[in-house]
């Protein structure tokens, strides 16, 4: 089974939980690999958003406060940098700052842009996961380098209810 097929199956698996909502750009309409990855997920569980990276991450946090399990999707790590205020200052610190009153649970998917077929250059292909690791206190990072870890990793995150950042690699799709 290919990397893409594993991702698709993992997304279908987690979408069996009716509280799961996928949000981002090209989750509902073609445009990038995220669309392909979610092709078997019902449209009613997808929220197609404009380009509002930071707002998207905050929205995901807000959706989780009222009982949803958001999966916030970004097609390139380079674009995800625009969401870091909500990701690092808010989602990652929310339980701490709220004295444990709120325990938001958000899954975040970030793709590292492809270099193999078409090299999209320095603003579309970076992997900043090592730097990000130093900024996070409470959020797990899982780098999905091996296709065999994909389904299990998403399933476990849903079970553990711990906010997790998944790094996917477009070159492996």
């Amino acid at each position: 089974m290919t990397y893409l097929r594993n991702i698709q199956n993992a997304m279908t698996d987690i979408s069996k939980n009716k509280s799961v909502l996928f949000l981002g750009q090209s989750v509902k309409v073609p445009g990038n690999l995220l669309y392909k990855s979610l092709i078997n997920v019902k449209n009613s569980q997808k929220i197609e958003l404009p380009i509002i990276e930071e707002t998207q991450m905050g929205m995901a946090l807000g959706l989780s406060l009222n009982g949803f399990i958001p999966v916030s999707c970004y097609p390139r790590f380079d674009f995800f940098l625009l969401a870091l205020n909500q990701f690092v200052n808010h989602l990652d610190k929310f339980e701490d700052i709220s004295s444990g009153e709120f325990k938001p649970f958000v899954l975040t998917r970030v793709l590292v842009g492809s270099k193999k077929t078409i090299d999209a250059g320095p603003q579309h292909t970076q992997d900043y996961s090592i730097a990000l690791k130093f900024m996070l206190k409470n959020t797990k990072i899982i780098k999905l380098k091996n296709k065999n870890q994909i389904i299990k990793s998403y399933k476990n995150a849903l079970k553990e209810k711990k906010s997790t950042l998944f790094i996917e690699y477009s070159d492996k799709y």
Partner: protein
Amino acid sequence: MKIQIPKKFQSVNKVKLSEKELINFEKIIYNLYQSGKIKFPIHLSSGNEKILIKIFSYIKKNDWVFSSWRNHYHALLHGLDPKKLKHQILNGKSMYISSKKNKFSSSSIAGGSLPIALGVAKSIKLKKQKNKVWVFVGDMTSEMGIFNEVYKYARYNNLPIEFVVEDNGLSVNTNTKKAWGFKKKEYFKDIIYYKYKLKYPHHGIGKWVSF
């Protein structure tokens, strides 16, 4: 423009706290800070008691309220127990007052609460719940890009969220109008806006404290 309250808002809630009780709460925190018992930043409220009591009469108990680092009045008026609020402040959480029970949250980052409030509003609409979201921001935050994004998305998608702009003219000590270079500001008609004079400094109490 000193106050803008859209006509759609009606009193739905009898606010139990008086202006004096709000002022007295901040005086207690002032004294605790002065005596060195709070070793963390505090941002005291003042000068907006009357208008806030009016605004909170529009807010139902089950509504969500999002605030900023200056949140003590908002928290009290949304029903947080003063003892629990004081406990959070003494434990260094003044800038982040939160209560799941009271559906109250705050952030110490300018504009930080806005998209979170938007997400809650979206969830309310998806779940067909009856309550709504209120988000309080300062005048400088209301000029930020994130405010523009959140307001637009909320209104285009008819989400149950109200915006309250509290204008003390300053962001820390920077004059909002001068820094931006405008003289007059008009807000959208569905936004609650009021101007007030903060009697305390941006943070602390304006006196040197030895800890």
